[in-house]
């Protein structure tokens, strides 16, 4: 292992330590996520004024936009973990990458559903070949491809390594897809229908949005850690530290 990797990161690479660390962080992250989401929803659905053009329908952005951010953020996090796992063969990194995929896929799916729900009253159609929506769809396929590849191997670690490689191919490809779809869209459509941009947005709408973003990030951490813990227990079933937990010596963490 490269010696520039900070010591604490190195230590986190050990499954029992990561298991305990994740066990401590997870309840806090989950509680904070629920609190932040409740505050953000109250702010967004009750306190924020209705949009002068879109009425109340715009309020779906409090779900849609944070999900869209998360779908990309999780892909980025997954790619970093995949890279670390592939280069330094760190088991935890492989597991983090693989357990991120279903969460990212779920956020991508939510983005697509809320996007089309919002599109119906706004554009009068459930689906439009907008560059961002289409890229999001391709991203969903990519997530599903990663999950499918991971599960198609008998050996989990081998599957994780192959799927990690696919993640890295995807990180090169997603921007190209986005660019090409953009090019294609401007070629085929005279006037572009713009998704609501968060750039010029009133502060009363902005803070619930940012709070929701924090909530989704915390939720990701909580959900990821729960999944990684379960996967660690499953894959390290034969090891001493898992036996110790099973026997109740370490029941608290």
């Amino acid at each position, binding site marked *: 292992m490269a010696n520039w990797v900070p010591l604490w990161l190195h230590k986190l690479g050990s499954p029992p330590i990561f298991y305990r660390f994740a066990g401590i962080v997870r309840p806090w992250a989950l509680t904070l996520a629920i609190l932040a989401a409740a505050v953000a929803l109250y702010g967004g659905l009750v306190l924020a004024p209705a949009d002068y053009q879109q009425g109340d329908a715009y309020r779906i952005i409090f779900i849609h936009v944070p999900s869209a951010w998360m779908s990309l953020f999780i892909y980025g996090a997954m790619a970093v973990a995949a890279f670390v796992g592939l280069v330094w063969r760190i088991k935890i990194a492989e597991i983090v990458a693989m357990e991120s995929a279903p969460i990212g896929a779920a956020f991508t799916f939510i983005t697509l559903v809320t996007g089309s729900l919002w599109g119906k009253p706004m554009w009068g159609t459930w689906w439009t070949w907008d560059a961002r929506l289409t890229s999001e769809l391709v991203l969903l396929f990519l997530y599903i*491809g990663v999950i499918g590849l991971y599960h198609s191997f008998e050996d989990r670690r081998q599957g994780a390594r192959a799927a990690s490689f696919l993640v890295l*191919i995807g990180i090169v490809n997603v921007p190209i897809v986005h660019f090409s779809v953009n090019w294609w869209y401007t070629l085929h459509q005279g006037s572009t229908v713009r998704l609501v941009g968060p750039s010029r947005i009133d502060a009363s709408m902005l803070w619930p949005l940012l709070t929701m973003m924090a909530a989704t990030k915390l939720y990701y951490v909580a959900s990821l850690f729960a999944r990684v813990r379960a996967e660690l227990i499953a894959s390290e079933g034969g090891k001493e530290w898992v036996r110790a937990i099973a026997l109740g010596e370490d029941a608290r963490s």
Partner: protein
Amino acid sequence: MTPGSTCAACVALFRRDLLLAWRRRGDIAMPVLYAVIVTTLFPFALGPDAALLSRIAGGVVLVTVLLAMLLSLDSLFRSDVEDGSLEQWMLAPQSLPLLLGAKLLAHWITSAVPLIVIAPVLASMLRFPTAAMPVLVAALLLATPLLSLLGGVLVALTAGSRRSGMLLALMLLPLCVPVVIFAAGAVAAAQDGLPFAAPIAWLGAALALALVLGPLACAAALRIAMDA
């Protein structure tokens, strides 16, 4: 050319794959037949309206060729995995990316070239304007090697897995979106009498990039897939 040099090894692998394809000539015809059948289904589904067919001809031919290539890509490494030849040439003291480059070239010649040859016929069946035909062929000449290289990496990833067919489609098709967009964009522009150089140039640039990175990625993917 001394035996055992990298050049000789690539030629040996290339010749072997062409020879194997020749010994099983029937298999080469399969993707072509598939493309012919899929293309003939479109007029039955959409009606014989010449204007409509000529409007969609370029896209239909491109997507059909893409799907036909997907069929043949699935078997890129399969027989070599099954009979142990893969290990033999992976262990050879040669540069694996170059060997894979030779293998992908042989695969492109046996699977894509017949499709490119038949593509003008398919396009004419759908009333594609003859004037735009060279652009269609040029787009295919650039897009099919891209698909071979991109597909080669993904097939290599699934070489050690239990199932591959549908999984390969699931992984490859999203990554193909840019290829389809630019190839179809060039064809549509040519059909409308608009300049088509830009998308063709983009395809060419992507191909140049893929020619360098594809074999390297393919070798890395194959090493990962066989590491079990």
